[in-house]
């Protein structure tokens, strides 16, 4: 028979054996497996128990090119789940690296809305319209009481039609019929834009159940 009894594997050094400082050093190890382990270890403990963990994880994220380590760094920051961790992620929304940007958006969505919203909401007024679009998308995904009001503000004032349309889409994804009057205001602001007319019509059909 070709099946053989599995050998008991030697357990690798437990994640908790190194002290915080050691793991911080290992974040810059040449071996990606060590960097991944360090990220896991730093994320596995409350951030206040690892002084400097969040800034170190974030700083490593800026220069990390190995996708598996990047994923471990993002996961560690999600696990930290604090305002400090959310604030550390937000600057990467402006990154030119699409993979990093998408990873950050996904990570922020998985963190508590109460800590993410204060960091993301100000981006709805950023100078860069792409950043405002990402912010509108993110706000739309956060289960937060200010969500509707913030997106309504975008639709009421943002000069860039694509930002407004991102807000419309976010509201439609939320499925709250209270959003319909807000969406309808957009038609008045951009009366000649056929895509706005299409989106508003789609929202009417969605919320009326037609």
């Amino acid at each position, binding site marked *: 028979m070709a099946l053989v009894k599995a050998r008991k594997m030697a357990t690798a050094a437990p*994640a908790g054996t190194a002290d915080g400082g050691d793991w911080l050093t290992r974040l810059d190890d040449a071996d990606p497996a060590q960097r991944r382990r360090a990220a*896991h270890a730093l994320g596995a403990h409350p951030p206040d128990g690892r002084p400097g963990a969040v800034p170190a994880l974030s700083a490593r994220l800026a220069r990390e090119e190995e996708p598996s380590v990047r*994923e471990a760094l993002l996961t560690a920051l999600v696990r930290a789940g604090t305002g400090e961790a959310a604030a550390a992620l937000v600057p990467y929304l402006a990154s030119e690296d699409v993979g990093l940007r998408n990873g950050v958006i996904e990570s922020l969505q998985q963190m508590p809305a109460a800590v993410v919203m204060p960091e993301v909401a100000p981006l709805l007024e950023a100078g860069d319209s792409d950043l405002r679009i990402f912010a509108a998308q993110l706000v739309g995904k956060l289960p937060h009481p200010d969500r509707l009001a913030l997106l309504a503000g975008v639709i009421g004032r943002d000069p860039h039609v694509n930002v407004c349309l991102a807000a419309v889409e976010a509201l439609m994804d939320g499925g709250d019929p209270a959003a319909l009057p807000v969406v309808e205001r957009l038609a008045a602001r951009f009366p000649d834009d056929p895509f706005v007319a299409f989106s508003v019509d789609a929202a009417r059909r969605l919320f009326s159940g037609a």
Partner: protein
Amino acid sequence: MTRLSDKDDGEGLSAADYDAFCRFLRERTGLSFTEAKRYFVDRRVAERMAAVGAPDFRHYLNLLRFQASGEELQLLVNRMTVNETYFFREMYQLDCLVNAALDEVVRGRELGSRVRIWSVGCATGEEPYSIAITLLERWSRVDDFEIELHASDIDSHVLARAREGIYEERSLQALPRHLIAKYFTRLDDQRWQIMEELRESIDFSLVNIADPQQMAAFRGMDVIFCRNLLIYFDDLGRREAASMFYDALSPCGFVCLGHSESMSRMSSLFVPRRFPDAILYQKPQS
């Protein structure tokens, strides 16, 4: 009398207690229960509180948190997990294993080298035994390699049953009769026991996949089956589990998920591979 909550109606945990309990369980085991599962959770907590004589929920939670042996947490976990399965379930993935994936895994390997397969969340053992039977019956290169089969679960009771390998008709319903005759011994009208050689070939172990230290014991795996387990985890738990599977796998190793699960919704670490029989998720070469 045992009181589940401080609420006057005595029906289930209070909202705050339910939240505290779910957070604790998620932190310690990865299992995630939402409000929709409240009835399921309330019933099982009440049952365990009565069993240990806990006067109220706070005492019971303290027992779970601080009991040095962890025995009560284990007993509760045993009641919180669902272990319904049967032989040859989601057979298309086993087809994929022997028709394509394993041939790719062993490409370039020396004859006689080890191939490691791990069934995570193996429950009462139907999955690892199904893998073993499928390999022996249908993988043409099965005699060219030494195949290790690992199987694990967080529930100690089901692991004991898996090691015992005794099944009723319902578990065997999808197995062809000739395979039942070949690999099982009939014990009585209702029960069959899988042959000792197969029972002895699988390494069953108690593993909490939310615990990095326990997961660190698993390295160099070629294929990981984790089907219909991560549906009990929340987004972060799934993401962390995917990361641990990544560390446990050899380069180019595969993860098999349940039919309703998708790795792309959990993690960006793996590359989806579409084979004729199934989609598997592959760890990149480097």
